[in-house]
């Protein structure tokens, strides 16, 4: 059993861990990062292979070895989910993600207050735990800016210091300066979507993405090959942690990355202080790292799981759980979809960055009046392929044929043969509300390859508020699809209650130790030298992909650790 000592140990070296490794390393702190998977390079991603990376999910956890189980309610047994939407290598999900890089709206940070002010408290579903964040957009703006410029995000501003700009997102919160890189080129699905949306008076714009449209920081620009979501980038134009922060962390001389290292326990002492972590090495060895500062930055399930597994006599309900909120308020996006297909032209949606290419924000957040609609909050609506990647396997798996056409046989063959290159899919990424009974806990029946109980998600998105919102958005998307001049317009089937993309919550942040697990910096209220950083801390989720907000929060936490905590360890709030 090896024991190592360090200043900081980070569990999970992905979107969060990579930034922390570089920023804390630059400040002279000795950092060890534990990463469950391998460290790959850009050369590993050439040529592209849809079977391997999309269908067999090689950049994601193997659900048989590292199961996460799901059940719609507490009355039934949970079963492993066969798609896990996060990464399993250094760089984490940023290696294979679609790169959507959003700043949340001002009202996304105060959805509860905004709702009460505009619609009254009774508008909030009684069983929802909708809450404001302990941080405002204005607090986070400098760190959004830092993330965009440090990592490399392409887009066009729609609100520069309050000045609205056509062609950008006019609903976005005011930004201090333009994006570091111009918007990516439009593909034909984006052109059609923009034309249709404008006809209806909406405000389409190129989705901001962490893919560089021009050479940046010694990296070459995007080649528009289309292999983004599910794939590593073959030229390094995707601003993943692999090509941005990890080289920077290496250069500090203060960072050590341990791959194949699975953390199984957070160690604490009788004084209630974290002393480090224990992990299994790639050879099955049992090892311990002693650290002054412990930061958990895995995907959301493992925050809750590790804290529950690390319970002691002093922390009988799991670490950092004096509030009783650990594992609660879990959220996920649902992707409601409408297909638009053309008999008279090609669309070739497989060209260009694949995910959520062009957007309207008109029906997101509180950008529209919800009076009388029977639901709160909205969705980002975008155009792209059926399942965020556009290859033929993904299309065959995810593109439901129109009503009346079977999913196999000669008619299906002809459908796929005709429309594979002649369609676009509109996608509403819904902001589902938080509910306290949507939870993560330890599965009593299923264990992973190391013998640890699997994280178990209890979740069903089909709440009245959510169902009403999806129907509203479906109708809006059908309207846009028709305005796009599509020959055929039809809805995709909705998922059963299973959580969709971007799982969030479980270690909610707040201003009050009685109702939250961590403060605005991700510092646990109960154990000041234990931090949890990532989307597990989100009190609400917005209709946007979470990564840039996760990264902005990470820069903010790194700043507070370097400027304040490093010299005077203790509560930051």
């Amino acid at each position, binding site marked *: 059993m090896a024991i190592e000592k360090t200043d900081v140990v980070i569990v999970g070296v992905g979107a969060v861990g990579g930034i922390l490794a570089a920023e804390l390393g630059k400040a002279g702190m000795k950092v060890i990062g534990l990463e469950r998977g391998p460290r790959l390079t850009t050369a590993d991603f*050439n*040529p*592209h*292979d*849809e*079977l391997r990376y999309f*269908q*067999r999910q090689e950049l994601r956890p193997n659900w*048989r070895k590292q199961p996460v189980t799901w059940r719609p309610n507490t009355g039934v047994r949970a079963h492993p989910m066969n798609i896990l939407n996060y990464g399993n290598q250094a760089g984490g999900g940023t290696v294979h993600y679609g790169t959507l890089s959003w700043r949340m709206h001002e009202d996304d940070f105060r959805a509860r207050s905004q709702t009460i002010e505009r619609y009254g408290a009774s508008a909030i579903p009684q069983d929802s735990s909708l809450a404001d964040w302990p941080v405002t957009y204005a607090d986070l703006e400098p760190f959004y800016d830092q993330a965009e410029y440090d990592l490399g995000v392409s887009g066009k501003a729609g609100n520069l210091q309050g000045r609205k700009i056509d062609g950008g997102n006019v609903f976005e919160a005011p930004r201090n300066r333009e994006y570091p890189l111009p918007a990516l*080129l*439009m*593909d*034909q699905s984006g052109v059609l979507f923009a034309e249709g949306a404008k006809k209806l008076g909406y405000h389409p714009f190129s989705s901001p993405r962490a893919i560089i449209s021009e050479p940046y920081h010694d990296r070459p620009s995007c*080649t*528009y*090959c*289309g*292999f983004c979501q599910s794939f590593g980038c*073959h030229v390094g134009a995707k601003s993943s942690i692999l090509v941005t922060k990890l080289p920077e962390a290496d250069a500090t001389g203060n960072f050590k990355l341990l791959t194949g290292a699975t953390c199984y326990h957070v160690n604490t002492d009788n004084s209630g202080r974290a002393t480090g972590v224990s992990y299994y090495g790639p050879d099955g060895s049992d090892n311990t790292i002693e650290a002054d500062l412990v930061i958990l930055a895995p995907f959301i399930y493992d925050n809750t799981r590790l804290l529950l597994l690390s319970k002691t006599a002093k922390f009988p309900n799991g670490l950092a759980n004096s509030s009783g909120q650990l594992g609660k308020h879990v959220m996920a996006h649902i992707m409601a979809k409408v297909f638009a297909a053309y008999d008279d*032209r*090609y669309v*070739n949606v*497989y*060209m*260009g960055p694949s995910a959520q290419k062009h957007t309207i924000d008109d029906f997101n957040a509180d950008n529209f009046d919800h009076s009388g609609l029977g639901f709160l909050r909205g969705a980002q609506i975008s155009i792209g392929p059926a399942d965020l990647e556009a*290859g*033929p*396997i993904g*299309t*065959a*798996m995810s593109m439901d044929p129109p009503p009346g056409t079977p*999913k*196999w*046989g*000669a008619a*299906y*063959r*002809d459908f*796929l*043969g005709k429309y*594979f*290159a002649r369609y676009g899919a509109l996608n509403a990424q819904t902001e589902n509300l938080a509910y306290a009974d949507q939870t993560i806990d330890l599965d009593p029946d299923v264990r992973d390859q190391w013998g640890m109980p699997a994280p178990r998600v209890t979740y069903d998105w089909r709440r009245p508020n959510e169902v009403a919102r999806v129907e509203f958005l479906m109708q809006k998307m059908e309207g846009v699809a028709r305005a796009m001049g599509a020959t055929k317009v039809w809805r995709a089937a909705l998922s059963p209650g299973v959580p969709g993309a971007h799982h969030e919550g479980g270690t909610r942040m707040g201003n009050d130790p009685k109702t939250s697990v961590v403060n605005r910096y991700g510092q646990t209220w109960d154990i000041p030298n234990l931090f949890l950083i990532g989307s597990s801390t989100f009190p609400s989720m917005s209709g946007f992909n979470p990564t840039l907000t996760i990264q902005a929060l990470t820069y903010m936490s790194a700043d507070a650790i370097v400027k304040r905590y490093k010299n005077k360890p203790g509560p930051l709030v």
Partner: protein
Amino acid sequence: MTKHDASRRAFLVRAAVGAGAAAGAGLVPDAIAQNHDHMEGGAAAPGAQHPSGSEHGAFFNHADAATIAAFTERLMPSAPDKPGARDADVLNYIDLALAGAYAELQDFYRRGLAQLEAYCRGTYKEPFVRLKPEQQDEVITALENGKATGFAYPTAREFFGILRTHTMEGMFADPLYGGNKDFAGWRLVGFPGAQAVFTPSDMQSKQAFSREPIVGLQTIAKGPAGRA
């Protein structure tokens, strides 16, 4: 590609041809019509019409191969200028996958095939490969809707779902994996493969993309990606 030895190739080709014969005329070679249970376990039946011991799939025995070939061909039928499962060699893809990446599904397939045969014999008094195409479609529909009786593990829906998924993988995965023969699947839908670059003018086109070649992991093919 050591698994692509000549005898295995012959085995698979014959199974696929058998499927075509079944679909075309309702007739199959006696070897293919052997009782599934009899063939289970790899015991080669005696007689000239049976495969010799050296002719085998990477996973499937001859009878199972014939069933899979016939089933997948109904899921994605071949027609002139419209490549289907037989043209793409979907059987070869699934056979290789079950001997490798999907080895954990071997039992799933064995049990699923046995249940399928029992269902067909119970309902039609014939194995799946001997049924007329319309009857085969009835069987597949019953699986898809969970109406086929006698399925426990896998359930009828699960078996249908995996067979559909693996058929699509065999149609559209890179030919390196044994299916999508000569880019048959990619030609069907007009997918140009793993192109490293699309140009601004590619992105502006309202036409089918037709620049040669189709790009695969090990091979490239001349000729337009789309159908002629």
